[in-house]
């Protein structure tokens, strides 16, 4: 992205970013193997590449100066992927990974199931209830525009989340307010919590919806790092008039065969045995993208 004052930090090649995403998934699975409660592992794995490219390439942020007004803002609208964001941010130097693992979900921990700005400075907004992030992002983008700042406001939504009417209100507002500094990533994994998209809720033709609401639409394979990098590098100037959505075709559970496109893994926990199976699967899946994963067998049941 083309920010104004904040440097983007270390430059990574597509290969390095791919390795970072692998590392992020490993860490996610490890936490999911030790933490007793359920982790939203399906939706975490589905955004691991997106969060990697954002925190290691796209966002102008500075872990040592988290309140710098020139920073890009990132709002995790699909707040249930919090732990994936925490770890991605830890890998960028915001937090300590060990602290995340040691305290996740515990009493008074700053690291819980959903991001809490009150308890964890560095995250930009408290989210978790779906459909809230985009309106917040519109407000932040308006503020930046008004102050003449050149940073972007980036948010990440689940595709199921975009069933919420509040999202479409904000889509309309982002366009009406002419916020070219506003960018929404959609994790288009074609799953909600208890159903596959199109099975109970018809989202198609999905990108057309955003187009009809006046947004600039970029479509990518959300597990293809080269495409993600390219999308970010092609984002319009923040001073322009039209907000951008990056529709990322993804796989819920991506990287772990038994979780992929499997409704049983919206949330769950891994014992030690399953952890090693999962890590082995992760190794086996290296280098694959969404296009490599077969469509879901929608006759399988949610548990």
């Amino acid at each position, binding site marked *: 992205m083309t920010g104004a004052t904040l440097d983007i930090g270390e430059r990574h090649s597509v290969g390095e970013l791919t390795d970072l995403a692998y590392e992020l998934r490993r860490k996610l699975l490890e936490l999911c193997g030790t933490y007793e409660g359920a982790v939203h592992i399906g939706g975490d794995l589905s955004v691991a590449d997106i969060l990697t490219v954002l925190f290691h390439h796209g966002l102008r942020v500075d872990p040592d100066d988290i309140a710098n007004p020139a920073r890009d803002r990132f709002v995790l609208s699909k707040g249930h992927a919090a732990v994936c964001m925490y770890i991605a941010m830890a890998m960028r130097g915001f937090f300590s990974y060990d602290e995340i693992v040691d305290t996740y979900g515990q009493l008074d921990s700053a690291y819980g199931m959903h991001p809490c700005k009150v308890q964890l400075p560095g995250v930009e907004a408290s989210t978790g209830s779906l459909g809230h992030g985009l309106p917040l992002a519109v407000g932040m983008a308006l503020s930046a525009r008004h102050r003449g700042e050149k940073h972007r406001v980036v948010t990440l939504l689940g595709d199921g989340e975009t069933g919420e009417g509040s999202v479409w*209100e904000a889509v309309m507002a982002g366009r009406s307010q002419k916020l070219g500094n506003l960018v929404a990533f959609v994790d288009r994994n074609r799953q909600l919590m208890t159903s596959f998209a199109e099975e109970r809720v018809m989202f198609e033709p999905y990108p057309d919806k955003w187009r009809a609401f006046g947004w600039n639409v970029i479509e990518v394979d959300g597990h293809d790092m080269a495409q993600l990098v390219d999308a970010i590098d092609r984002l319009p100037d923040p001073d322009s008039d039209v907000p951008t959505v990056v529709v990322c075709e993804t796989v819920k559970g991506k990287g772990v065969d038994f979780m992929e496109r499997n409704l049983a893994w919206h949330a769950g926990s891994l014992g030690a045995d399953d952890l090693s199976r999962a890590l082995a699967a992760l190794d086996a899946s290296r280098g694959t993208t969404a296009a490599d994963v077969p469509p879901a067998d929608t006759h399988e049941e949610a548990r």
Partner: protein
Amino acid sequence: MPVTFTFGEMLSARSVIGSTLAELGETHENLWVLTPDIGATLVEFRDKYPDRFVDVGLAEQACVGIAAGLAYDGNIPVVSGMLPFLSMRALEQVRTDVCYPDLPVKIIGTHGGLVGNGGSTHYAVEDLSLMCSLTNMTVTSIGDPVMVGEIIRQSMHMTGPIYIRLAVGKKDKVLYEEGQHEIRIGKGIVARDGSDVTLFTHGTTVAQALEAAEQLAQDGVSVRVVDMFTLKPIDAELIERCAAETGGRFVVLEDHLSYGGLATRVADVVADRGIRLESFERLGIPQVYAGFGEDEQLRDKHGYGLSATVAALRRAVAPATRAAADEPAAV
């Protein structure tokens, strides 16, 4: 430019909102005004600060969410609209995006109570109960149009959210002379002193309460009228003092459901502090959807108009007072 006014005069509270915001926009460069297509009174602000005026159209949820996003970035957003919609359609946004991170978002609007003859979709009759349910929220209901400006001004110093309720706000009586009362968020106003019974009220019924007190005075009954314009945090000290100083006789009058609003806030204090009352009566909207009619007609019909207020005050000071028969059957 502050509005000038005369005691007793009729003034539009809406125009006070408009002019106060336009005035504050000058001194507060981070003040924004947002509305979901209810912007008629905000024209002055809009024209002076078009960049800080956001009309999102019919989209209450986004309106509140955007306000929160602005506040996260150091701005002071005012959301102005019709309360039946702002208090309910956007309630989760108010709770989760505004109250939870404790952001300085102000929600101000009209149509609190059975006012405006819009029918039951258009009356905010449970809004104070809803707003008092929210942690970190300060909740006010204002009757005096000049006070509206004063409260907005005071609220500029708050770090958290505030809810400001008005009735229709087109024609409101100036109740207080300038400097007559100390006006401070969180403190009730003794609008008229008295020693036999306290009549607690807020918002549009303060004028009616004063009128009722005047009528009782002619019977030799001394009614204290408390304008409890802040419902949260509630002025518990004042309530306790009134119990002691007015013979433990309380009547609560409000253009709101008689459960959940001020009457309930008072009951909470009474229970918490173990206050012994001689009498307690609620005058407000019963558990019905009220239908059409002009403001005063509906108040009369539903038992909290002027004559009902006078009657309740008489009951309160009569011997053997507990009027258990007046308690609604099921609440």
